[in-house]
């Protein structure tokens, strides 16, 4: 194992980042020392990623940074592109978000680690391979050197990224949303791994919207809102007695702190499945499952990723054919009244179409009235001005509420919410869930909530079904 290059302090003083139209990040000051990991919390667009980019030196050319970022006294902002590049991998390592996309899909994982030894640390080829094996073993991937990224799980990919950081031996680790898209179990393991890095003497800067990550890492926590650092202090202090109202809202948005508010069923079964089974390749996702959703209830299906919970929901919606078993819908109800919310809200809207056009076409298709849309906008607390934007220009939380709005236009009796809030920051998640609960209460809609977040399921569902992952 490479002993990390010793770095004593990263200090940021008065950092501002400007675009042509004005400042996006204002006056950030913070510092980072060995043994004291720093976690930046905030919603997307709050500027927390820009801070990480400024440290890394990867800000887009149209953005300019001012202030000071000092790594053991060396100013990073004024350094030349070559100097910045010189630090990558050697002094500063980046743990990319969604590492399964950041690893070369056409190269085995071993060589992807080994090349750091070979081309960054100038080792001979055989030695590089041997060292790479060591790095992989350190993160528990000793057996995986011959695998391609597409053959590995998200957690394995994240650990491989850590192994790459080890290989470079850098002293500062920047983790950008390291747990995005991972289930709770994997998340905990990644966080544990990151803590080991801190213990090994590395500086760790983590960017996340997940409060539990910040809580587990400890050290220092900063909360960012609209480009400003609104709260900054020890994890204990910020996460228990925050000084800023937004920090408080953030904490309140954590499902663990919610008051239980599960709706009670108000009617008959709207949808049921009997003896459902599904296999993929030669491997059974689940077998012999009976499930029913009643009007007015939220039924949660929880389980780790890969357990088949999304497939189950799709079978109930009729999007996937089960290998065995039957699905029954309540008689005499149009198929259009069974709707779905998606995990990644931007992917659920056509990227080239303004929201208004999509809604208008939908209203026209079903001969509805635009007034319904306007009423719903108000009810779901969505601003009129958002209508003319493209899906990529709207926050995830707002977009997910538009997805609910879209579904409500069809007067649904059943809604399959497939990890509908897992990609949202806590505040947005809370807003979406609140809206959903209101709607369930008002319309008597039956919801099938698929999630890996046990806390969330526990707080809002009428009933919970657990699926386990079967090992191959």
């Amino acid at each position, binding site marked *: 194992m490479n002993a990390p290059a010793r770095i004593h302090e990263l200090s940021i003083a008065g950092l501002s980042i400007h675009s042509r139209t004005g400042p996006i990040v204002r006056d950030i000051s913070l510092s980072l020392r060995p043994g004291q990991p720093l976690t930046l919390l905030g919603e997307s667009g709050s500027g927390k990623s820009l801070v990480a980019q400024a440290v890394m030196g990867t800000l887009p050319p149209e953005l300019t940074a001012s202030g000071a970022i000092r790594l053991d006294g060396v100013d990073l902002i004024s350094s030349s592109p070559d100097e910045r590049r010189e630090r990558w*991998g050697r002094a500063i390592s980046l743990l990319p978000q969604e590492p399964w*996309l950041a690893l070369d899909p*056409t190269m085995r994982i071993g060589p992807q680690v080994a090349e750091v030894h070979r081309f*960054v640390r100038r080792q001979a080829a055989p030695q590089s391979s041997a060292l790479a094996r060591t790095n992989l073993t350190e993160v528990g991937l000793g057996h995986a050197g011959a695998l391609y990224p597409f053959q590995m799980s998200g957690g394995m990919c994240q650990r491989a*990224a850590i192994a*790459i950081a080890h290989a470079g031996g850098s002293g500062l680790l920047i983790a950008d949303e390291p747990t995005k898209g991972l289930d709770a179990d994997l998340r905990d393991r990644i966080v544990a791994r990151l803590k080991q890095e801190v213990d090994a003497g590395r500086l760790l800067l983590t960017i996340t919207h997940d409060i539990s990550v910040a809580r587990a890492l400890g050290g220092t926590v900063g909360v960012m809102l609209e480009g400003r650092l609104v709260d900054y202090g020890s994890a204990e202090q910020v996460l228990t007695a925050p000084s800023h109202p937004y920090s408080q809202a953030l904490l309140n948005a954590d499902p663990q702190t919610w008051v239980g508010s599960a709706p009670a069923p108000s009617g008959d079964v709207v949808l049921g499945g009997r003896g459902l089974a599904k296999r993929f390749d030669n491997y059974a996702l689940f077998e012999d499952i009976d499930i029913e959703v009643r009007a007015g209830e939220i039924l949660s299906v929880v389980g780790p990723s890969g357990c088949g919970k999304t497939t189950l929901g799709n079978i109930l919606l009729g999007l996937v054919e089960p290998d065995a078993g039957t699905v029954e819908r309540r008689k005499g109800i149009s198929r259009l009244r069974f709707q779905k919310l998606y995990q990644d809200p931007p992917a659920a809207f056509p990227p080239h179409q303004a929201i208004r056009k999509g809604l208008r076409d939908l209203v026209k298709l079903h001969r509805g009235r635009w007034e319904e849309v306007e009423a719903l906008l108000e009810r779901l607390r969505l601003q009129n001005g958002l209508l003319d934007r493209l899906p990529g220009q709207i926050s995830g939380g707002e977009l997910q509420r538009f997805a609910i709005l879209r579904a409500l236009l069809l007067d649904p009796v059943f809604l399959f919410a497939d990890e509908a809030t897992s990609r949202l920051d806590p505040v947005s998640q809370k807003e979406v869930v609140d809206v959903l609960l209101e709607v369930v209460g008002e319309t008597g809609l039956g919801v099938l909530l698929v999630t890996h977040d046990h806390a969330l399921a526990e707080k809002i569902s009428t009933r919970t079904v657990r699926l386990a992952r079967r090992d191959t």
Partner: protein
Amino acid sequence: MRRFLLARLAQAGVVAVVVGTLCFVLMRVLPGDAAMRIAAGRYGPDAAIAEAAEKVRQELGLDQPWPVQFLEWLGNLLRFDLGHSLVTGAPVIEELKVQLGASLWLAAAALLLSLLIGPAVGIVSGLRPNGWADRLGLAGSVTLRALPPFVLGLILMLVFSIWLGWLPPAGFGSWRELILPSLTLALGLAAVSSRVTREAIATVAKAPYFAFARHKGLPEAVVVRRHGLRNAAIPVVSYLGLQAIYLVEGVVVVETIFAYPGIGHALVHAIVERDIPMVQGTALAMGLIFVAVTAGVDAASAWLDPRLRRAQ
């Protein structure tokens, strides 16, 4: 692997039968007197074509009914006998050996040269989209696309044979004669493949794994070599496969102006002169080349992209 080969063999069989049948039908529904055309093809325009045509008609049994002729062709095909050219009298297989062989050499040389030019220009353009190299690449590509190949060929002849005196303008037999025709073709190919490569490289350069390779600390050249080229090669290879198919027949004009004995030239003559066995034999050979090239491209893609390997 065996399934892959078997599937390809089956495809080759289907292509052979369909292409053969299509040619057979098309050639026979063409208007005009075939015997006349064959006679003109054989004896040239100074000859007494009409008298010669009568002899051709008797000699070749062109007045036999179609089904008989077709079954005969099919039967011969099963014995790998493609018949004799109606014009030259030589066995079709011999003609193909010479002409197709020459064309394949030309095509291979052109593909190789275009590989040296197109992707190189494309990489330089794609790494800095909208940079000056990219703009220059676009202008060059559009220029080459707008110039008919015979104009390009003439320009190359003027430059390399007359002006510089380095290379013979026409002929065949050694590598020196191969350069100009293959360069003419290669520039045309590179005009498009450089843009395809540019797109591929630009896409790869935006990919998170390309950024991550940089963030790992790898020098830029290593990033491009180890993480850029292979990934960008995946779409480029499938495109080059398509080009290779167009190439073998796209050579006709180049063959004509460089006096190079190739299949495109022969095919044009065969169609004009209604040399049915030659047309069928040529189309068949090209169909099989198509199958071989697609198989090669699939194999190359699978080698480049492990994700495809599993899918197979």
